């Protein structure tokens, strides 16, 4: 069996049950129908599934309760009424009887039948008047059943209101002007220009069908649109509503007005096959949109545009009046005007930039198309629209990305918003991408030193920590300084995504010391000011061992996860006389390494030491052990070459080269280092994402991949079978994949593998995220709780969360695995699948003080 055929069979297999349960849209149904005709195996499988469904329905027959069921229920309900009415019945009567009697008395007073008699009081035999009513009802029923056939009879079309007549037909097949349509139509309306009218008295709807759309008229007030575009209009103020069935089970109901409804197959541009983009343009009047499975009617007011795209929620926008998106869509659907030769080699991306809670258009945003090394930029126009053009030959990568930066005046919007356009762009076609800039929050607070004095002029930046991938990056442009009273306002914090936390990097104006890192600063809606106790640094003496040493480089890393990616380096000269030490400033929790030059002028002898904190102002360095291979892997490795004489200068607090994921973060384009070198053997990794609990495939899970210690990138969505193939991976390196599913994140899965073969298949089991809540003493309020997973696929996941002012501690979105929680100087462990935290008294003293 060919791979394509096998893939079709897999797809068919997953569709058989919804097919039998009539849950597929017509397009997928047709696909299954066609496939089972050509594939004997799937045909047999379909018969089996149909038999299963039939047997299940047969076995599940409705069952009657006992004969006095209703009376028993109503007796109990009357008791409830009596209790609710707070009536104290006399001791000689039961509540039920007493209440019933009182209620019935009231009802008799009001002229209603006696409740207590129930159905026995009602006439059980059919009197002459009832028979007459029944005959009348039967006559009405017969008339109602017969009428539609009379109405739809093409022989006498003009006599009946509510049917559809052809009023214009150009190249529309056998249909001619004046024809009445027999409903429902056996065949769909296709091709040419066709205009039909509902009723011939001017009180109905006019429907325009143009091009190769697939439209089926189901009844006088119901039409199915499977592909293409229809225009619907009525001028009658009291025209009955017209329902348009759309692919995927969505329905739009049109009240009077003028509308364009478009269904476009975007299977070739979507990560999922067989998906449609639906747009409804309300030029006049109003409509209601009901998405599949929802009971909620979304109103579409006049002048609105509803867009429903694959894997996205329904978006309602204002219908652009000038550079109309409607026109753009028409251009795209109908192939557009003739293109020049140059145009055919051009990648064109168009769309609108929107932002904020209301989703209004954002003019002045800088939009960029990234294609490998090349970037095309544009600024969004007054109506928020943008257009990017990039010659295909300029693109040095097969991956394309669009980014948007909010205009300078819009402080409420995030600076950058990235959307993947992976594998969907091709030259000569216009692609539409609406970019939505996230709303940002501000965080305010006050910095105080350990002595209680305000910390003035400290530089404050925001560090976004990705707990899932263990990376940390500075949020670009998010920076402020503390005022005279230590107060600060840090604007521009974009919302955190699943697995992300935010920390403040606070560098006192005095510099030199490693910055204070305040973890667990949420950028959510917490409006309470933040009180941060800042350590401004304690003087420490670092011992020098080699008598020939003249220069010492001291590397300081802040406490917690930030220390894994960020550091500062201080170049210090050893005094010619006196004690063989150098002095530096340290903050509590920071780690320390230093190198001596041993007379060579280059770092050649490495040490790391444990600071001993006697008091907030005193620190000593103990146990200056020569660390293992620190010399070669430390600073020396950063020299341009082994024999370079270039001096290493003081480095301000900065990311460690090669470890920090700057700029794009989790949305980074795939890094070059993650690909096999040209000519070298490469591997393909086929991931199958499954629900760990029930073992079934998870469709449309987002999968991120990271090779070795490089940045993570978005590899794509899983298909119907929960599969995703990552290609062109270097062999023999560790690959980590993390899958997310559900809005927000409800399911998480991770896999770490070393790919050695040409093609490897691995399963990624997904489990539900969990939340842990507990309380710690008020003395630990506002402190940082360090949380670390130390087994399972998320081994190493680490976040810091802030304890609430009331001592409450809530950890959400926790992946599976045993969790170590550390607060102040105590720690506890939560079982791999547990959510219960032991009582604070049972927490044990923590192993280390630095919170790691």
């Amino acid at each position: 069996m060919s791979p394509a055929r096998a893939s079709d069979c897999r797809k068919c297999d997953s569709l058989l049950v919804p097919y039998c349960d009539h849950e597929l849209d017509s397009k997928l149904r047709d696909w299954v129908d066609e496939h089972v005709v050509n594939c004997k195996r799937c045909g047999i499988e379909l018969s089996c599934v149909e038999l299963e469904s039939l047997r299940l329905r047969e076995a599940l027959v409705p069952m009657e309760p006992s004969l006095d069921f209703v009376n028993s229920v109503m007796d109990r309900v009357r008791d409830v009424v009596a209790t609710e009415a707070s009536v104290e019945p006399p001791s000689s009567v039961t509540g039920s009887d007493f209440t019933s009697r009182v209620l019935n008395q009231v009802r008799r007073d009001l002229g209603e039948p006696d409740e207590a008699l129930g159905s026995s009081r009602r006439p059980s035999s059919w009197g002459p008047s009832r028979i007459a009513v029944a005959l009348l009802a039967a006559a009405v029923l017969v008339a109602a059943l017969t009428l539609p056939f009379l109405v739809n009879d093409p022989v006498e079309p003009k006599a009946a209101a509510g049917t559809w007549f052809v009023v214009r037909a150009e190249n529309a097949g056998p249909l001619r002007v004046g024809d009445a349509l027999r409903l429902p139509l056996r065949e769909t309306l296709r091709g040419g220009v066709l205009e039909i009218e509902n009723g011939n008295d001017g009180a109905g709807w006019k429907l325009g069908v143009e091009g190769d759309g697939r439209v089926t008229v189901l009844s006088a007030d119901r039409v199915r649109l499977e592909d293409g575009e229809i225009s619907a209009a009525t001028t009658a103020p009291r025209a009955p509503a017209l329902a348009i069935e759309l692919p995927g089970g969505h329905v739009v109901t049109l009240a009077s007005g003028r509308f364009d409804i478009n269904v476009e197959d975007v299977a070739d541009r979507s990560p999922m096959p067989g998906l449609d983009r639906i747009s409804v343009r309300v030029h006049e009047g109003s409509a209601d949109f009901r998405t599949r499975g929802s009971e909620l009617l979304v109103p579409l007011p006049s002048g609105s545009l509803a867009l429903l795209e694959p894997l996205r929620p329904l978006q309602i926008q204002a219908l652009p009046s000038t550079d109309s998106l409607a026109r753009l869509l028409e251009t795209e659907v109908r192939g557009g005007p003739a293109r020049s030769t140059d145009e055919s080699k051009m990648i064109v991306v168009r769309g609108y930039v929107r932002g904020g809670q209301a989703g209004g258009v954002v003019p002045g945003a800088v939009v960029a198309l990234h294609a490998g090394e090349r970037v095309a930029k544009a600024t969004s126009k007054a109506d928020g629209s943008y257009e990017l053009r990039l010659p295909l030959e300029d693109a040095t990568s097969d991956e394309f990305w669009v980014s948007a930066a909010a205009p300078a005046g819009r402080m409420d919007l995030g600076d950058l918003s990235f959307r993947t356009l992976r594998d969907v762009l091709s030259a000569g076609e216009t692609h539409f991408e609406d970019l939505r800039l996230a709303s940002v929050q501000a965080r305010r607070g006050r910095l105080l030193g350990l002595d209680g004095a305000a910390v003035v002029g400290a530089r404050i930046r925001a560090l976004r920590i990705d707990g899932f991938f263990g990376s940390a990056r500075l949020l670009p442009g998010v920076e402020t300084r503390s005022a005279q009273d230590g107060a600060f306002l840090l604007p521009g914090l974009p919302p955190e995504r699943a697995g992300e936390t935010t920390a403040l990097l606070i560098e006192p104006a005095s510099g030199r010391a490693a910055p204070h890192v305040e973890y667990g600063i949420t950028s959510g809606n917490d409006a309470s000011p933040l009180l941060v106790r800042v350590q401004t640094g304690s003087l420490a003496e670092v011992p020098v061992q080699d008598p020939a040493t003249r220069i010492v480089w001291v590397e300081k890393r802040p406490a917690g996860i930030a220390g894994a990616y960020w550091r500062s380096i201080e170049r210090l000269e050893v005094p010619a006389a006196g004690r063989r030490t150098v002095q530096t400033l340290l903050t509590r929790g920071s780690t320390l390494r230093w190198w001596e030059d041993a007379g060579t002028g280059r770092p050649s002898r490495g040490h790391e030491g444990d600071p001993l904190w006697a008091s907030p102002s005193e620190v000593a360095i103990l146990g200056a052990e020569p660390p293992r291979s620190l010399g070669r892997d430390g600073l020396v490795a950063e020299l341009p070459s082994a024999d370079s004489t270039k001096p290493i200068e003081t480095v301000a607090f900065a990311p460690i080269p090669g470890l920090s994921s700057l700029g794009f973060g989790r949305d980074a384009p795939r890094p070059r280092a993650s690909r096999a070198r040209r000519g070298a053997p490469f591997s393909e990794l086929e991931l199958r994402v499954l629900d760990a609990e029930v073992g079934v495939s998870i469709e449309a899970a987002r999968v991120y991949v990271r090779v070795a210690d490089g940045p993570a990138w978005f590899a794509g969505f899983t298909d119907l079978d929960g599969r995703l193939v990552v290609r062109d991976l270097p062999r023999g390196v560790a690959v980590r994949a993390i899958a997310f599913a559900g809005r927000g994140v409800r399911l998480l899965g991770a896999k770490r593998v070393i790919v050695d073969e040409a093609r490897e298949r691995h399963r990624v089991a997904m489990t539900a995220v969990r939340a842990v809540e507990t309380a710690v003493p008020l003395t630990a309020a506002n402190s940082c709780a360090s949380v670390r997973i130390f087994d399972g696929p998320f081994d190493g996941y680490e976040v810091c969360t802030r304890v609430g002012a009331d001592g409450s501690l809530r950890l959400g979105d926790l992946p599976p695995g045993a969790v170590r929680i550390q607060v102040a100087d105590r720690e506890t462990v939560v079982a791999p699948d547990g959510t219960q935290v032991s009582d604070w008294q049972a927490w044990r003293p923590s192993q280390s003080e630095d919170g790691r």
Partner: protein
Amino acid sequence: MPLHRLLPPASMTEPERHLTPRALARASDEELMGLVRGGDLLAFERLVERFKVGVFSLCYQILRSREDAEEASQDAFVKAFRARESYDPERKVSPWLLRIASNASRDILRKRQGRVVVNTDLLISESDKLLDPEQNKAESKLESEEVHRALGDLTEQYRTPLVLKYLHGLTNQEIANTMGMSLSSLKVRLSRARELLHARLWKRWEQ
């Protein structure tokens, strides 16, 4: 005691809120529930009439015992009446009611943990089967009973969505609302339930 102090709250006895029996019969479930929210007992009785089979069948499929199902379905209606104020008029009545019934059944399921339940219906059907002269009918009945048994072997979390789907004909979204879970979780659960049924039952038939 004066009569007016014995009356239920005014909302329960508003005469204009009562409908005639014919109007009640024509009213939709949601309209009836609207009346019940105002305390109309006749409207509630009509609702009980309409839903007694559905609710009882669901409870029976979960509990596999007529006695327990009777108790659970009565509890469900009483709870529904108590909770009438919390009913959202924008939503359909049936998923709301079935959710209450499913929870009531689970309560009984928890209570009877450790108690052995003899399914009298199946015992009766076994004897009926022997007396049944028509072989085809007997085979068909046997198959249904096997499905019935296999369903009974499933845990409640897998049985309930199947019952709601194939007996009550609810859509996936309605089942998800009824069971208080997301649509994707429901699909996963339904799929798994069918797999389990398949493993336990259909394989035997294929043999």
